[in-house]
């Protein structure tokens, strides 16, 4: 049955409704929104003078109306202790999204905490500790002093390596500059924690090490470049579903040819045409489909490579481009080093590449032409190179990342309008932390440490290994066992006897136990295991700054109260630091206690001024007041100064040809093909019939933490879907909506069959990170030499379990837009 809200009218914001700046909580695009709030006892009117939009709401609004908001954009929330109406709707004045919302961003309001309307009422509202055999609400002081006492004892006995940390490093909700600074200052400045990992991978490492090592940051262009490019070369990415409004507002105009005027105006003196697009992806995605609809199939080249062979293709493209003489020789000579060596090492013929990738040699040649053949009159083509998890979380991460950067340098596809060599991004970014050099390289493989029984205390910040790690089954099994040892020890001693409690906990740790602390906004599976659970505030409940995929920094203003006693993560970090200081001082260790000075922040703005303002490039110009004045358009980092009271943007990086290396040159890098790099995967491919490729879906944000609580989404995907070829389904006797088990030598998980006519036989695609079927269960623990997992190239078998719940009310029609519609 299709979910219907049964809502057919909405309250109207009055003309004097409070209006605040919001950046979408969710994906990297960071779309601009406005929050309208007004007193619960008031209503705006239909007449133009009576509502916040200044239009006659008694008349039908037509397409792209600035005024329409749908029920998911409405809620009732608390603001300064009083209930208010809230509408959060996309901002037409934001240059990023130009009034568009995606299906994810369109439910910001609906995913707020509301005791009035019942949304997200299971948000964590108060600190909880494990006592009397369950999680019991308690005060901040009680919870934090326990964490501090246990953490101190662990440090005293095992040193700082006994403290294991899992923490977000991103922007947007559950991240942002304030909170990465708060946690960073605690773990990298007050302490020097080495055993730390990031929210979506088992170590503390860059996903794009290679491009950084070669001198190029991974977010180096601006969204307008997608409107100016001659060719967009897109590797392992699916922007319609994952960077939705970037694709809709900036790629589509170039595909349709409606950005031609902009091209001619900004880039005179060279020929222009609508964009051509190349996709490298084993799977045909809706992005390919829509590009064909908009640009015509003749302008779209889908290189459906054999999974994991991107590197070979990239090396072959570079070889072909240089052999044809299409490379940017002047740029290479003036601004790069290592070209000849890298070219020699990576030399790959088209025929060899075709053999390994399974592609038609002519298609590889065509791709090389589209990427680099000079335009009529000799001008360099402008090619934007975009990649994401297909490359980042695919085979041989470091070398493949290097290979695309090589191709970029060879064609001077960075620092010029219409170019860029960029990751498309998942979350927004918001990283400012003290130096992390002590973590080392390669960084510690934290999940493996935990499995091996190491560490005494685990601090978990908005991370859930249970849903999102690899080798997840074993991780969960061990984690439950270790944390249970501590739970049982705690239960044996009255909670009020703190000294005896801590002693019992430390003894349990000596026996292999683990004391765990979870900071999050909602209950999570890993949080279930923890002994202390701390409630965090999210965006909108605190002021929060982040940047998007074109380094656009904005301030999301606080427009509602956090639930209960929840606090911003940065303030939780500060209060934990205060308690650690007190605990060490009480234990007589003044020297260590003194390390926790500098955490007297009272507000997130204090954390911002301590962190971003003092430590980010250009941060000295940026304050909350100045950001507020910049609205939803903000400023592109690094901020270059202040003019007429306005923050000045840096639109693109490397426009001067100076790169982030010691000599300022971009460094080419040898990146030879070495097959499926992660141990055991090549054998797994032989042994199991189905590739279990995996990634996001349009409708679902991240690990579905809100979505499992949102009927509109939950009704559509009650279980994570697995897309399969109908022929494979027939072989296995499967129907659309069947619940299947996916299993291999690593573990097993479940999914709901969704037929996709264009799926290749033997190649499935499953939603990743779902709480109701973790693909991580079937992904082996092996990583590359820098501890980056290969989440994508996994093979398994599939068998039927039964029907998925609610499957009979779900439409299994193709997501593809029909070419003849």
């Amino acid at each position, binding site marked *: 049955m299709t979910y219907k809200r049964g809502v*057919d*009218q909405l*309250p109207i914001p009055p003309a004097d409704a409070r209006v605040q700046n919001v950046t979408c909580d969710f994906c990297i695009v960071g779309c601009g929104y406005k929050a309208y709030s007004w007193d619960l006892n008031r209503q705006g009117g239909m007449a133009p003078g009576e509502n916040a939009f200044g239009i006659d709401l008694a008349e039908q609004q037509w*397409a792209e109306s600035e005024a329409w908001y749908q029920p*998911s954009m409405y809620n009732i929330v608390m603001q300064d202790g009083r209930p208010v109406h809230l509408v959060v709707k996309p901002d037409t004045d934001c240059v990023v999204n130009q009034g568009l919302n995606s299906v994810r961003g369109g439910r910001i309001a609906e995913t707020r905490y509301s005791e009035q309307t019942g949304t997200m009422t299971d948000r964590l509202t108060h600190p909880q500790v494990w006592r009397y055999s369950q999680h019991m609400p308690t005060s901040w002081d009680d919870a934090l002093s326990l964490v501090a006492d246990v953490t101190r004892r662990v440090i005293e006995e095992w040193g700082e390596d006994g403290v294991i940390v899992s923490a977000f490093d991103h922007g947007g909700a559950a991240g942002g500059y304030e909170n990465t600074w708060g946690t960073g200052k605690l773990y990298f400045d007050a302490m020097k924690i080495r055993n730390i990992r990031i929210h979506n991978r088992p170590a503390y490492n860059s996903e794009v090490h290679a491009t950084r090592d070669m001198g190029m940051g991974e977010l180096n262009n601006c969204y307008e470049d997608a409107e100016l490019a001659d060719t967009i070369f897109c590797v392992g990415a699916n922007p319609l579903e994952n960077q939705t409004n970037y694709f809709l507002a900036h790629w589509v105009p170039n595909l349709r040819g409606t950005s031609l005027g902009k091209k001619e105006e900004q880039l005179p003196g060279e020929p222009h045409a609508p964009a051509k697009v190349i996709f490298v992806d084993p799977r045909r995605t809706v992005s390919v489909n829509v590009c064909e609809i908009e640009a015509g199939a003749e302008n779209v080249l889908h290189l459906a490579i054999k999974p994991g062979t991107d590197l070979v293709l990239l090396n072959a493209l570079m070889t072909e481009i240089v052999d044809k003489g299409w490379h940017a020789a002047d740029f290479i000579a003036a601004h790069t080093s290592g070209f000849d060596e890298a070219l020699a090492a990576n030399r790959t013929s088209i025929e060899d590449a075709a053999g390994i990738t399974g592609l038609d040699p002519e298609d590889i040649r065509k791709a090389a032409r589209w990427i680099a053949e000079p335009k009529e009159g000799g001008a360099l083509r402008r090619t934007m190179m975009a990649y994401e998890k297909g490359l980042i979380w695919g085979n041989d991460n470091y070398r493949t990342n290097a290979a695309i950067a090589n191709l970029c340098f060879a064609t001077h596809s960075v620092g010029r309008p219409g170019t860029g060599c960029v990751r498309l991004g998942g979350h927004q970014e918001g990283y400012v932390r003290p130096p992390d050099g002590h973590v080392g390289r390669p960084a510690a493989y934290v999940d493996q440490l935990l499995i091996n029984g190491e560490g005494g205390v685990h601090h978990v910040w908005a991370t859930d290994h249970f849903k999102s790690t690899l080798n997840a089954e074993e991780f969960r099994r061990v984690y439950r066992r270790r944390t249970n040892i501590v739970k049982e020890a705690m239960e044996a001693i009255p909670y009020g006897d703190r000294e005896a409690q801590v002693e019992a906990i430390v003894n349990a740790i000596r026996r292999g136990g683990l004391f765990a602390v979870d900071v999050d906004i909602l209950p999570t599976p890993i949080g279930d295991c923890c002994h202390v659970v701390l409630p965090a505030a999210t965006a909108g409940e605190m002021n929060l700054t982040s940047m998007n995929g074109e380094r656009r920094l904005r301030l999301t203003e606080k427009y509602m109260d956090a639930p209960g006693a929840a606090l911003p993560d940065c303030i939780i970090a500060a209060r934990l630091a205060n308690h650690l200081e007190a605990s060490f001082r009480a234990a007589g260790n003044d020297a260590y206690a003194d390390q926790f000075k500098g955490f007297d922040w009272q507000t997130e703005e204090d954390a911002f001024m301590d962190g971003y303002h003092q430590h980010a490039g250009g941060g000295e110009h940026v304050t909350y007041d100045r950001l507020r004045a910049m609205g939803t358009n903000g400023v592109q980092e690094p901020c270059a100064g202040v003019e007429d009271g306005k923050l000045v943007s840096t639109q693109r990086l490397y426009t001067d040809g100076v790169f982030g290396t010691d000599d300022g040159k971009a460094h080419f890098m040898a990146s030879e093909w070495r097959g499926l790099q992660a141990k055991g995967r090549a054998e797994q491919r032989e042994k199991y019939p189905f590739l279990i490729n995996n990634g996001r879906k349009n409708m679902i944000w991240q690990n579905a933490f809100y979505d499992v609580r949102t009927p509109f989404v*939950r009704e559509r995907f009650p279980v994570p879907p697995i897309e399969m070829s109908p022929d494979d389904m027939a072989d296995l006797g499967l129907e659309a909506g069947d619940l299947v088990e996916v299993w291999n030598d690593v573990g097993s998980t479940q999914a709901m069959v969704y037929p996709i006519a264009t799926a290749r036989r033997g190649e499935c695609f499953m939603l990743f990170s779902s709480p109701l079927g973790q693909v991580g269960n079937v992904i082996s623990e092996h990583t590359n030499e820098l501890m980056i997992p290969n989440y994508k190239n996994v093979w398994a078998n599939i068998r039927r379990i039964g029907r998925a719940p609610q499957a009979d009310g779900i439409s299994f029609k193709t997501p593809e837009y029909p070419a003849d519609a």
Partner: protein
Amino acid sequence: MSKCDRLVDLGRRQFLRGSAAAGVGAAATVVATPKRAEARARVEYPSNRLANVADLAVDEPLDISYPDDDSPGVLIKLGKAVPGGAGPDGDIVAYSVMCPHKGYFLNYHAADRTLNCPGHYSRFDVELEGQQIFGMSNQSLPMFELRVDASGDIFAEGVDELIYGRTNNVLGG
């Protein structure tokens, strides 16, 4: 189905989903005691004659509008019974054709019985109460509730989601 039954039905669906608090009363009006959700009365719908069963042929959509001339919709006979289908064969459905994302007009694709949006590629299944198959909207397609009388006249009498471009399904209501 009367409006009252309809509300009961929506309430039941909520109950089955186990999120009793979040549904019917979620939006709308002044809430007297802020700690409690209250059901909101839905707007009063006109009963408008759209066509006669005899006017319809399978897969030939008929342009209609409901609840007023500014709200274009489509009436389709599918030739097989579907959830929410009206008429003797349970196969007649009616939907708004303004996309509940940004209001572009949807196109009917008979080959797979979907309504498709040229704006940003949202797709809605007309055989399944307008379920959004893929897309940008946070609601499925508003479906017009139909009644067919003994003479075969088809009346629209309600709408199950907010129609694009309105704060109230019945303008000025």
